[in-house]
């Protein structure tokens, strides 16, 4: 069990480092055991350094940088041990245009092993989707759901 955890930890950390560097176009990130000698009892810290910047605490990261870092870790977990499906509710809310595009690309790369359900207001994310549902609020607080195609949604 100890080695199983160590092996999982190392592979997820490597996947996280790789996803982070891909999202940020550089920089470095990894998972760190707070007490390596305690093995599976140890806590896990995240170390993340965007490109061109020196190593600082996670607190200093921007909203969008935090989103991308968290998504990089999620994708590392999904690559190591794929969940059959994954529900993401507006995880792109703080992302700028370039990052939303990388996010959509990374989602598409994982669809071979995981189905994604994403709630979004962002057109770029919508464009990555194969199925589109529009939800609207009707009278009496009752939602109605409609199957849509990208062409149905006006460019803003």
């Amino acid at each position, binding site marked *: 069990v100890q080695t199983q955890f160590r092996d999982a930890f190392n592979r997820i950390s490597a996947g996280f480092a790789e996803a982070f560097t891909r999202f940020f176009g550089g920089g470095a990130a990894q998972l760190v055991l707070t007490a390596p000698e305690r093995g599976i009892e140890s*806590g896990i810290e995240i170390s993340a350094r965007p490109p061109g910047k020196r190593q600082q605490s996670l607190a200093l990261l921007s909203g969008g940088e935090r989103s991308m870092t968290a998504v990089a870790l999620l994708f590392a977990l999904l690559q190591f041990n794929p969940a059959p499906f994954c529900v993401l*509710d507006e995880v792109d*809310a703080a992302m700028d245009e370039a990052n939303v595009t990388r996010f959509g690309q990374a989602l598409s790369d994982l669809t071979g092993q995981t*189905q994604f359900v994403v709630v979004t207001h962002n057109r770029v994310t919508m464009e990555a*989707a194969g199925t589109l549902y529009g939800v*609207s609020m009707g009278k009496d607080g009752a939602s109605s*759901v409609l199957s849509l195609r990208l062409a149905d949604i006006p460019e803003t």
Partner: protein
Amino acid sequence: MYLKRLEIQGFKTFPSRTVLEFGPGITAIIGPNGSGKSNVADAIRWVLGEQSPRLMRLRRMEDALYAGGSRRPPSGFAEVTIWLDNTGGWLPLAFSEVAVTRRLHRSGDTDYLINRQRVRLRDVNELFLKARLGQNSYAIMGQGLVDQVLSLRPEERRALIEEAA
């Protein structure tokens, strides 16, 4: 293909029976603020057996029942059914399709069904635990919580890795 279809009735803003069919790949849910998108995500979490009302933005579990509108009465029950494609055998059951239903009555009674058979909550929990869809699954990220994993305490983050391992 794993997630086939979701049916929602009486749950939150879905007083009438609502059906969503999922394709392989990515399904995007869009629409105006307050329309019910996150309520669909809550329905998925709920039918998978979530016991913490707070994680579905409920003060108490009874708040899951459609509360009624200006000219429509509250629902007498809330019911969500999820259909899963099990041809790959990722679920430890001998069916090629598995339908899980959760039904909450106004009385507070809850029914759980797997392929129309009454089961207990723990049967639903055990079913999904192996599929990494159990509680605290990293596979469901709620609105406004995307960077929650960065603020977890080190022990909580270890639990996440342990779950994947």
